[in-house]
């Protein structure tokens, strides 16, 4: 059964799209990542024009994130205060990122920059998370009780504008989440993703938030980032395909609910390990595509407009 997508201007298999939405939604609910870094390449692979894929995925991620946030909120796992501070940083960052994107585009190497930054960021984050979570798992198997210090003090803790984040059990400078939000904002504007896969590790390792709170809080700020991106694309490029978004949403919101339930059964280090593994696989695939000889050296794109 096929459906014609009015903005993408191609026909696609209904069940293929629903299946993809469901699978990505599942991951989204489990790990608190929007899933854009997986969904966008998948859509391009099945023939959706890249511009339509990026814009439509951001619309779909909004829905999946809302679904996920509501589920986490009921479990009391969303730190709204932290989310808002991150978001303020994110808005500033994405404005800067859009500016950088425009410069890269005029130089003509934006595709390469996207792929390279994916490989670098996914590779680094994935590897670090994987090592950390495996170590944590080994430690817990051994049953050795390594008493961690309750409070570790770095130069970071000397920063001004201290704020108390009750849900996250943190008393840190507001500059930290603001800076991380800004950095992720820059990246997400350049790479065309919600930024969850950068945000989640940053919240865990840089801010020291508990994994259970991280996921809901990350999803909370992704809602606003992706809604903003959707609106900008709808106005400037008319590349949001509501038909495609609706199909992806209808299965991904269900997937996100199921994913949240799965996630709740796993321990923090297991979740982090699985996310790391997924990130590494995507990274390897992208690196492979950069190096291997393409089937056709030529690519076509619409000129003008």
């Amino acid at each position, binding site marked *: 059964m096929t459906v014609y997508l009015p903005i993408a201007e191609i026909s696609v298999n209904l069940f293929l799209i629903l299946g993809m939405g469901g699978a990505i939604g599942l991951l989204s609910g489990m790990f608190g990542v929007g899933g854009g870094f997986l969904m966008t390449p998948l859509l391009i692979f099945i023939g959706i024009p890249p511009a339509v894929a990026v814009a439509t995925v951001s619309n779909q991620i909004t829905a999946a994130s809302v679904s996920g946030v509501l589920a986490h909120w009921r479990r009391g796992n969303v730190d709204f205060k932290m989310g808002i501070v991150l978001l303020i940083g994110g808005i500033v960052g994405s404005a800067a990122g859009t500016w950088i994107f425009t410069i890269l585009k005029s130089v003509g190497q934006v595709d390469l920059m996207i792929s390279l930054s994916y490989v670098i960021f996914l590779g680094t984050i994935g590897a670090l998370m994987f090592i950390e979570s495996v170590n944590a798992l080994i430690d817990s198997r051994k049953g050795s009780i390594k008493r961690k210090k309750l409070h570790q003090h770095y130069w970071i803790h000397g920063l001004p504008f201290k704020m108390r984040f009750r849900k996250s059990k943190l008393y840190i400078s507001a500059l930290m989440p603001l800076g991380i939000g800004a950095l992720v904002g820059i990246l997400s504007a350049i790479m065309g993703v919600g930024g969850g896969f950068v945000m989640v590790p940053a919240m865990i390792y840089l801010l020291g938030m508990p994994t259970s709170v991280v996921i809901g809080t990350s999803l909370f700020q992704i809602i606003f980032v992706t809604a903003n991106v959707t609106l900008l694309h*709808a106005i400037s490029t008319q590349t949001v395909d509501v038909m495609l978004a609706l199909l992806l949403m*209808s299965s991904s919101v269900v997937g996100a609910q199921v994913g949240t339930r799965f996630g709740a059964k796993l321990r923090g280090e297991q979740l982090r390990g699985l996310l790391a593994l997924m990130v590494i696989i995507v990274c390897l695939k992208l690196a492979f595509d950069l190096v291997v000889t393409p089937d056709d050296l030529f690519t076509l794109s619409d000129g003008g407009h």
Partner: protein
Amino acid sequence: MKKLPRNFRQSLFAVLIGCLFPVGSATAQSSLVTDISSHLVSVTSDFTGTELLLFGAIQIDDEDNLGPGDVLVVVRGPEKEVVVRRKERVAGIWVNTEAVEFKRVPSFYALASNRAVEEIASPDVLKRLRIGPTRLRFQANEPAEKSLSFEEAIIRQKSENDLYSDQETAVYFLGDKLFRTTITIPANVPVGDYIAEFYLFKDGELLSATSSPLFIKKSGLGRTIYDFAYSYPALYGIAAILLALIAGWIASAIFRKD
């Protein structure tokens, strides 16, 4: 940008053919009567492609000049600008290095004939009429020696996507005068104003040519969405976001068991 009105384009086509190939008034004239099974293809939300029947009759005035001629049928889609980029290996990574911009690239091109076009007319004539995917003569912003491989890439990739086709035995004659052919319109067909051209050749000479318009349009829900997205982009964006919020909330409400 406003497209040229259809009638104007058709008459322009007739004038062009007339200028290129003046038919002597002394010789006998054969003419074509042609039509398409449908002049409007509606791309609805369950569109999976379609087949068009193109048919016609040859009217031969000169009774001494009997015997079948050759018929070529061409369907051209709207012309667009296309940028072709070529990748090269730089420090182990494949990078886009060179680009050529082409103007007047038909988004769809289908050719059907009763035998190989090279046997029907001379290369010169075929080139002037732009018949066959390899003779479309796109306008490049680079000299021919550089743009040739880029042009071939367009033809190769469009052919792989069923957007360019060249069927050498697809025109069937029923007797000497009636002919028909089918042209497949794939699901990924670009929408727009198309033109169907019919050429009658005899001994390598163009005797007659006709053309008819063909419209491929979105319709139904898809059409509404498309129009909304382009007419009210901000409102469309807000609607898309609201849709996402509602979808997320509904799913969460349904799954709320506790």
